[in-house]
């Protein structure tokens, strides 16, 4: 290598670096991030969208949990921020404020369908018929006993209730970055907790705080990653009971079995009928400022909630999404078309 070629090389590298820095290319790919529950559905919709619309690029779907996705979403307006945040819970007022503080004023909420949350154990472990109060008693920091609040003494499920299997309590719940956690706390823990007369006697402002306090002796594990990590935990520890989405369970029926909650088996039919208590709507949020700037954003949102994509007999239903009713679908479509902001 002589001086000349070396100089050439240096020049090439300098040019490519400056190219990299100045190329603030306008983005033509839709960027999505957020809930790992919505991720499979969103990915399928994105892929089908890319395959069916030759003029648009296939949207890119990231994960990070509902909280993580909405935080990214609310970072601001511009091509280096995401266009859509997937969420397995409704946006919180504080998040909406953060959005507005960063200039994201047009947040369009799109409901895509429903999903159930299930408790599952390994196929070779005990079969659970849970009541919400059982789960509360398994994870609470303090529980009422003989009229007093004592540190949680329960080590085995059978100590909580004779009908539950005689196996150690090890509960793998989603971390606080997941939208599933919020629904789990609201529909299972708080509901179960408030059935106790000692809790009903408390004033309402301390109730929630008491109900959500978790024991810290290792019987409850928070899983920050996705359901695969929860499944790995179950595979490593036979006694563990994990919290999953219904669709994840459906794909792994040979490894895990579900618990009934309140005597109801979690199935699509029971969730549609409203008898299974732990179900929630799934959403995505579209950044109104990006509609018309990022090609295909509006079309993608409409395609996602079209009957062919997420209705009965659609690919998303096959993947485990519980479809919206026709009325709801029409309402959501109107929201997208009129860009009704929150």
């Amino acid at each position: 290598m002589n001086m000349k070629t070396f100089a050439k090389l240096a020049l090439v590298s300098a040019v490519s670096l400056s190219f990299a820095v100045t190329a603030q290319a306008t983005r033509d790919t839709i960027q999505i991030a957020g809930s790992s529950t919505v991720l499979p559905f969103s990915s399928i919709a994105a892929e089908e969208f890319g395959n069916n619309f030759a003029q648009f690029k296939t949207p890119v779907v990231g994960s990070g949990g509902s909280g993580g996705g909405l935080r990214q979403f609310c970072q601001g307006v511009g091509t280096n921020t995401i266009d859509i945040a997937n969420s397995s819970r409704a946006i919180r007022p504080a998040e909406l404020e953060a959005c507005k503080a960063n200039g994201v004023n047009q947040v369009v909420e799109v409901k895509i369908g429903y999903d159930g949350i299930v408790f599952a154990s390994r196929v070779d472990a005990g079969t659970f018929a849970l009541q919400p109060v059982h789960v509360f008693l398994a994870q609470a920091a303090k529980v009422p006993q003989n009229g007093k609040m004592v540190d949680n003494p329960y080590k085995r499920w059978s100590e909580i209730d004779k009908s539950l299997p005689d196996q150690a309590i090890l509960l793998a719940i989603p971390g606080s970055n997941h939208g599933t956690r919020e629904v789990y706390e609201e529909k299972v823990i708080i509901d179960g907790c408030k059935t106790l007369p000692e809790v009903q006697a408390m004033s309402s402002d301390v109730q929630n705080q008491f109900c959500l306090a978790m024991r810290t002796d290792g019987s409850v594990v928070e899983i920050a990653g996705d359901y695969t990590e929860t499944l790995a935990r179950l595979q490593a520890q036979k006694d563990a009971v994990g919290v999953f989405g219904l669709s994840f369970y459906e794909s792994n029926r040979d490894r895990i079995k579900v618990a009934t909650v309140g005597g109801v088996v979690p199935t699509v039919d029971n969730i549609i009928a409203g008898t299974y208590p732990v179900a929630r709507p799934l959403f995505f949020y579209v950044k109104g400022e990006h509609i018309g700037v990022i090609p295909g954003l509006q079309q993608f949102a409409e395609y996602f909630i079209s009957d062919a994509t997420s209705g009965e007999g659609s690919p998303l239903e096959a993947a485990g999404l519980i479809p919206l009713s026709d009325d709801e679908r029409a309402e959501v479509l109107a929201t997208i078309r009129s860009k009704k902001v929150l």
Partner: protein
Amino acid sequence: MTTEVKNLKGSSLARSKVQQQVINSLQKRHRQEKLFRGAGVTAVAISLLLVVLLFVNIFSKGLPAFWQHAIKVDIYFDPAVVQIAEKPVQQADESDNDFRQRDLEWRSSVGMINFNRLILDGLNKVIPDGQAHRRDLQRVVTSGERFAIRDMVINDPSVIGTTKSLYLLTDANIDVWLKGNIDRSLSDAQQQLSPKMREWVESLKAQGIIQNRFSFALFMNPDSRSSLASAGLAGAFMGSLYMMLVVIVLAIPMGVAAAIYLEEFAPKNKLTDLVEVNINNLAAVPSIVFGLLGASIFIGWFNLPMSAPVVGGLVLTLMTLPTVIIATRSTLKAIPPSIRQAALGLGASKSQAVFHHVLPLAIPGILTGSIIGVAQALGESAPLLLIGMKSFVASVPTSAMEQSTALPVQIYLWQGNELRNFFEARTSAAIIVLLALMLSLNSLAIWLRKRYEVRW
């Protein structure tokens, strides 16, 4: 001991005592040596065992995934179903843009056709009772294959009206069932396939209509979630390739230039010492830190696109730079000073001595160091997670500015897929591909070193 022996010379009694002492200590020394050798052999054996264990585990899981079940279907491109306008051809007076617009419209119109019907018609010929179980029948072929058939029509509209015998990938769960990756003794409620489908699949396999064929999909397709059986590594491979190009173009010239300057030209003072210490420190910085840096600087300030190989390449450049500098410097150090002195003695300038005489001799070493640095960057995943490269990307990137994943991240993504029975094997197959790439890069480095090595 020797002085003791000298002093006691002449006394036979004493001598035998000394001999005894020597014999005793000799035994002890031999024992120590044996112990050390034993420990060494054990250490080597344990590490070998672990490598073997790792490889056996990965290969036993991953190798079967290179073959995948496909069903032989005679597809009749029925003109009644596939009704398309003539494929647009660019006219002499038409601008490129207009033509592209017309072509896009034509492609969209072809996309509206229900190619699934062609597949179902073909399946009906091999599955006699298919009509009675339409829901099951629709799940036999993986959903992505209809786009493969559409593309056949787009590429060559003359196939319409003909019949072609095609091997179409079966649904991921059929592959799982036939490979025995799900416990066949489980009850119907725990199975993914309905009893009817299992019956079909078994009989089609026995007739040789479903065959286990080499999976080109694994290499030719990008990732997929709507059609799990056709998920492949092409997108991740191209993403990694673009990143490596950025690393090669940036890290190697900069690293080599920095190393030459520091080694040959820079004065030795406190400042250059400080620089040297910091370069060594930089090499020890955990890679995830570079990811944080990349996310805040390249994406936050320079507004580069998220999940793009160019950002990944820049981050990995930062990571590879110290490796290249350190490797180049040690190669330059190893070249005898006599070479430089001879050049200088004959009247060459300092830079002539370096670029005409030292550098050519150092090139094999520099190449080796650079290749090992690039191989390291190829296998890195942690910093890429932080710059958004763990997104699901269902297309093959055509430039470094387009969204993409990378091979190690694809492994991470497949590891998280919910259909564990199918993706456990797929993940191991991806690991084998990555390992093969790394091993070939490393053997290239070894070959270069052996081929061009200069002995002094």
